[in-house]
């Protein structure tokens, strides 16, 4: 088996498994005052410090959530509601059109149900938002912008977006910028403090930690309206009993992600380059998606003209190669990728996409398997055509 879908989820690191299982037998609610509670709280707070250190944040800026989707929802909805409450004129949301659905569908929901005006920023053919484009959009009416949300790295095509420069534009007008950094964590340097972002989403299971845990890094001056109400945990912003084993495990994975980032980027980046070369050699008219230079080291994304991405998945799966089209499904039916469409590719190219994403278990053998299989698979999928 060649597992090349680490962007969907990556196997847990042994250290993270150890940290998690070690705490399964221990009772203790981190909000309790007794010894068991204090022990749980100590674990949580140490974890908070580790996550903060891994991301250049202060411990008090770490809000644990159930994962990336919840963190995105909390940031986008919460900041929108808070900003609008402070000034009813602030109802405009500026977002990149290449966001993950956790952000995209959230801003659209605010547009449909909460009176938001959603404005998608222009992107270039690699999916990048230029600071000038954001400046133009903000300065048209700076007083009505509630927030800006632009991802750090795109999950489908791997392009890195210039988030610190964008945050600087927003900050100049006192506008908070949220960034979804789920894919970027562990692959490129993230320094929350230096980034100028108001909020940043990260997730556990994309970095070798467990499912169901993530965090929103949240600047201390920001108080989003909660999505989940209850016991008032996590700065009154995210209620719910803390998942101590998952938090401890996430913290170990986060520390290792930061510690191993440079090595990972170098080694996995070299492997990825091999994969890209092999695919382009086998299928000369394949088109590499995303920015060729400023991209995630583990991401390789291609459009194969005249192919259905689903057909390619089926054929590669039969060869033991596990990858993704990169785009979302509606009722199980593959849709043309909104990301690829946003970069100006036509609908047919947007349908024949494949994303290979490497990770800590990837080997040269995996790349060799793709090199062997991709040419015949594309030829066959072209025979099956676009239905």
């Amino acid at each position, binding site marked *: 088996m060649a597992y090349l879908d680490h962007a969907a989820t990556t196997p847990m690191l042994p250290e993270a498994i150890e940290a998690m299982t070690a705490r399964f037998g221990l009772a203790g609610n981190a909000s309790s005052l007794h010894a068991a509670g204090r022990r749980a709280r100590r674990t949580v707070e140490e974890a908070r410090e580790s996550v903060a250190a891994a991301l250049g944040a202060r411990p008090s800026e770490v809000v644990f959530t159930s994962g990336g989707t919840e963190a995105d929802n909390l940031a986008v909805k919460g900041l929108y509601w808070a900003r609008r409450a402070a000034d009813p004129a602030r109802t405009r949301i500026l977002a990149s059109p290449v966001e993950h659905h956790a952000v995209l569908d959230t801003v659209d929901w605010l547009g449909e149900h909460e009176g938001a005006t959603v404005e998608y920023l222009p992107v270039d053919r690699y999916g990048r938002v230029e600071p000038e484009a954001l400046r133009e959009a903000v300065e048209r009416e700076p007083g009505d912008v509630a927030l800006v949300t632009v991802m750090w790295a795109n999950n489908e095509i791997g392009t890195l977006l210039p988030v610190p420069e964008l945050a600087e534009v927003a900050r100049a007008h006192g506008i908070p910028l949220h960034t979804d950094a789920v894919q970027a964590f562990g692959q490129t340097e993230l320094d929350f403090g230096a980034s100028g972002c108001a909020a940043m989403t990260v997730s556990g299971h994309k970095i070798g930690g467990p499912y169901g845990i993530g965090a929103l890094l949240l600047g201390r001056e920001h108080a989003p309206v909660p999505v989940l109400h209850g016991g008032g945990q996590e700065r009154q912003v995210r209620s719910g009993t803390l998942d101590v084993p998952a938090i401890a495990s996430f913290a170990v994975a986060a520390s290792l992600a930061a510690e191993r980032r440079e090595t990972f980027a170098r080694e996995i980046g070299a492997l990825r380059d091999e994969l890209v070369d092999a695919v382009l050699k086998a299928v000369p008219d394949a088109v590499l998606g995303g920015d060729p230079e400023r991209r995630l080291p583990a991401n390789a994304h291609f459009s194969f003209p005249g192919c259905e991405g689903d*057909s390619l998945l089926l*054929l590669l799966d039969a060869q033991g190669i596990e990858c993704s089209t990169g785009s979302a499904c509606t009722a*199980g*039916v*593959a849709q043309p990728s909104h990301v690829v469409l946003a970069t100006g590719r036509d609908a047919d190219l947007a349908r024949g996409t494949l994303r290979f994403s490497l990770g800590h278990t990837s080997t040269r053998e995996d790349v060799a398997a793709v090199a062997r299989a991709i040419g015949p698979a594309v030829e*066959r*999928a072209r*025979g099956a055509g676009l*239905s």
Partner: protein
Amino acid sequence: MTENSQRRPLRVLAAMSGGVDSAVAAARAAEAGHDVTGVHLALSANPQSFRTGARGCCTLEDSRDARRAADVIGIPFYVWDLAERFREDVVEDFVAEYEAGRTPNPCLRCNEKIKFAALLDKALALGFDAVCTGHYATVVTREDGARELHRASDPAKDQSYVLGVLDERQLAHAMFPLGDTLTTKDEIRAEAERRGLAVARKPDSHDICFIADGDTQGFLAQRLGRAEGDIVDESGARVGTHDGAYGFTIGQRKGLRIGHPAADGKPRYVLDISPVDNTVTVGPAAALDVTALTAVRPRWCGAAPAGPGTYTAQLRAHGGETPATAELADGTLRVEFPEPVRGVAPGQAIVLYDGTRVVGSATIATTRRRDLAATAG
């Protein structure tokens, strides 16, 4: 196991509707050693989510049920979007046929144009050898290698009628693992249960899958609009009105809303539908007797018969068999019935059998009544 599933391992694409039959068929194919991949066909452009009652085959819930079954069987599973092809080839055809006063069979049409055409072609292009479905029918390979389609071992469950449109090439790539099942539906459900398939207790679908609520008249009225017209008797006398001639089927008795009874006091049936003047003709049951018909678009499972022949004919799904002689002339099938048959509706298929073997099928165009002049469909 059916005869064709005992052969060398094949790469098989199993069409999985989310129902119990297609799930058991896929499981049997996998158990027979074939390399099986499941596929659910998304046939509705706007799948209704989580409809209860599980009728038809176009819901999110059905897709999930199919995927769950594939996971239990341990085979890969995909959803293929054939909604556009289905709309063009099945739904629009269905509406147009009713509009023309005929009574189409969309399941036949789907087998001919979707399952064993669009789906089969894509499967073959992707390197599969066969498409497997949960139909009850038997494929027999003759000594010369040619394929024959036969009725299922259990006549009560036989579905060879809706597969009568398949030609030899389509049959060569068809697999029906339920075809020699001499068991009741309960036993198929028991087998599903034994295999751990959660669809074991799912209710059967009977209705037309793209008409979610089962209200065919409502669907047609929405598509074709109301068009009030007359219901007349055989003498041409007006006996009632209707909201659209397309809403009727030859042989229909219920729902005619005729105010006063016939002179002889016997029930009246739809004898004829005339879209041109938007008139529906009713009359006594005896007037439904058909002694001959013509049928168009013949499809043969193998070579077309050279001359006239004697067969048994089936004229609708779940219908009985009737003796018939048939001859092909200028692409039109001319069929005579020694014993008159009732309820023959233009648009339906006639499937000809030689014993249990399907010889071919055609779409009924015109019928000749015993005591009426031939009526144009």
